[in-house]
């Protein structure tokens, strides 16, 4: 027994903190610390020195708004940031054939990165540098219309020199010229455009999906996907309430929040996704989800033949992704050459025939249909079938285009309020 109590004491001692420092030592040492601290700045002064400057406060920002003169010769390198699954890929080698043709023709080495997963998230990553006027990593980025508008407003995009973009002026469709987000295309030219609607797998839903409210049907609880991008999810919800998102007020946005909150709390949605929704729909984890038109065509061709895309009866969102040059980009002329290149019909056709979105280049939609017929005539049924799937989302019908809407130009204040409302829906 005596042995045991001894051991117990030993354990108790082991758990007790030992005083390593005597009180006198502590006082002496903290005294030294105080002398050092006292000789430095006071804490409030330090804290006040850490303010975040306004947009365009940096040196590069000062030149925002005026067209910076382009260098006379290309630098020979280009950093191009784009979204995943947004360029033609050789399925066998994994190369980018059309991009390679550009590298060959211009002698420019392109570093192509699928760095953009979400407009807001990418903006969040580059914003501090752009605000501080540091040169950005990328020469060319692809952002959605409303984000282009925001970045222009903040002075983060450099003005384009249209004398270097003759193909754009010659071949761009009227729909993409002088758009609402960038008057006179002063800062951006369209890359591809598409529709936000619903993607679904009929074998899992067991029925045709036609409305936004199908996403909220308890029958599909737990297998529905939503977008983590606030504008897409909120705008589609607003449309389902009969509200035009372009004109929506904060009160109406709150109604949209209310509509989503109850099903969200009841576990209706599997999760809120960025680009990851693609895999989740393709592998059957989701039965139906908010989706981008061209993605569903690609999925149908390469990943899951069952999936379908539909514009909800209450309406879909039309968006245009644009190429733009961030302020202070190191290789602006190379970026101009790249933009001009994509407005050549011969580059634009293979791009759209792979990604399945609307091309801003005149004649592409017709060429997709012509190529399909030519493939049929030649007996290349596989390619003809592929082009037929692509044509579904790459050549929009009149009635489809009649039922799509634009995003609201949110002021910074409105945006903060909408974000607050949407955060309640996203985070449980």
């Amino acid at each position, binding site marked *: 027994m005596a042995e045991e109590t001894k051991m117990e004491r030993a354990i108790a001692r082991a758990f007790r903190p030992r005083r390593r420092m005597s009180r006198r030592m502590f006082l002496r040492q903290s005294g030294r610390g105080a002398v050092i601290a006292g000789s430095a700045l006071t804490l409030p002064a330090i804290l006040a020195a850490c303010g975040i400057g306004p947009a365009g406060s940096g040196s590069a920002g000062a030149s925002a708004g005026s067209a910076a003169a382009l260098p006379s010769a290309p630098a020979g390198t280009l950093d191009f940031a784009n979204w995943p699954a947004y360029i033609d890929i050789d399925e066998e080698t994994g190369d980018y054939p059309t991009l390679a043709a550009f590298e060959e023709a211009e002698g420019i080495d392109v570093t192509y990165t699928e760095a953009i997963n979400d407009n807001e998230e990418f903006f969040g990553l580059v*914003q501090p540098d752009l605000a501080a006027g540091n040169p950005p990593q990328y020469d060319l980025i692809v952002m959605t219309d409303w984000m282009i508008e925001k970045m222009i407003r903040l002075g983060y995009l450099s003005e384009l020199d249209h004398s270097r973009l003759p193909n754009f002026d010659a071949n761009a469709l009227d729909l993409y010229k002088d758009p609402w987000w960038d008057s006179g295309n002063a800062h951006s030219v369209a890359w591809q455009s598409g529709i936000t609607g619903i993607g679904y797998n009929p074998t899992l839903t067991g029925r045709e999906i036609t409305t936004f409210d199908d996403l909220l049907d308890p029958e599909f609880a737990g297998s529905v996907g939503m977008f983590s991008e606030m504008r897409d999810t909120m705008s589609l919800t607003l449309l389902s309430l009969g509200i035009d998102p372009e004109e929506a007020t904060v009160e109406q946005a709150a109604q949209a929040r209310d509509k989503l909150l109850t099903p969200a709390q009841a576990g209706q949605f599997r999760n809120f996704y960025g680009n990851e929704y693609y895999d989740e729909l393709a592998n059957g984890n989701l039965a139906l989800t908010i989706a981008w038109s061209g993605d569903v065509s690609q999925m149908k061709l390469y990943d899951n033949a069952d999936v379908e895309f539909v514009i909800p009866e209450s309406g879909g969102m039309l968006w245009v992704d644009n190429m733009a040059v961030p302020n202070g980009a190191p290789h602006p002329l190379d970026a101009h050459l790249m933009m001009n290149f994509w407005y050549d019909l011969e580059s634009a056709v293979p791009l759209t025939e792979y990604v399945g979105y609307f091309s801003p280049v005149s004649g592409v939609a017709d060429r997709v249909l012509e190529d399909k017929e030519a493939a049929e005539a030649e007996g290349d049924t596989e390619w003809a079938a592929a082009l037929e799937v692509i044509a579904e989302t790459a050549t929009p019908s009149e009635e489809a285009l009649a039922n799509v809407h634009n995003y609201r130009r949110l002021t910074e204040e409105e945006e903060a309020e909408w974000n607050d409302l949407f*955060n309640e829906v996203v*985070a449980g």
Partner: protein
Amino acid sequence: MPRRWRWLIPYLFLIPGGLWLLAFFVVPMLVMASVSLQEGSLGTGYALTWNFGVYPEMIQQWAPQFARSLWYALVVTVVTLAIGYPMAYTIAFRGGRFKSILLLLVILPFFTAYIIRTLSWKLILADNGFLFGTLKDGGILDEGFRIIATPLAVISGLTYNFLPFMVLPLYVALEKIDPKLVEAATDLYASRVQAFLRVTLPLSMPGVFAGSLLTFIPSIGDFINSEILGSRATTMIGQIIQRLFLNNNAYPEASALGFMLMAAVLGLVFVYARVVGADQLTR
């Protein structure tokens, strides 16, 4: 060095580490504190207005996510301890000549990126993936069964990712124990259980302490596992901070939350140290 300057030597040794802490801990902390008290917008810039109101506001808004992160981190720490202790014990006392190979196996997952490892679990455990798909086809699992997008997936992911941080310090602590002490205990008529509880366990406490901290601290702020393996209902505070910072550009709010998370962790570690004894780490 003259004798009277001798006392300076330990302080000189502190300079590199001290500068490191200053540059990468103290300065960022001050910046974060400052940003959290600023108000403004991207267009007009932010200025320090000593807006302390953001702190109670953020607590009120995100208390459930805070509580959930704390809860998950505690569960993860307990589970990794329960799994890691027998592992470390076996390697230390029964590993024999395989010791280094076994240790290598513990560290091996680190040879792959954190996100890749987490993503692979998403693939392995996919609702209709090769594992559950097969089981469902065989009628063993219910058609609606799933692991992904549940709290179980998030806690399992965290446990898996942080297990080596528990095993390694435990191994170090256990390895140092002289087996003769256990022998002595059994010679003195202690049962094997008693010998373990009275000798091995107390002597391994520094490992338990270090392992728990190394598991708990990264778990509570983690935003990857819940993002990839979880759902809306598993939202952790790290995800909120990330969303506020990157998606909403709400820098002051995100900084305030980050600051509070750090303070909470510090407070909890302090309490834990008082209970278990900080000297366990240095013994």
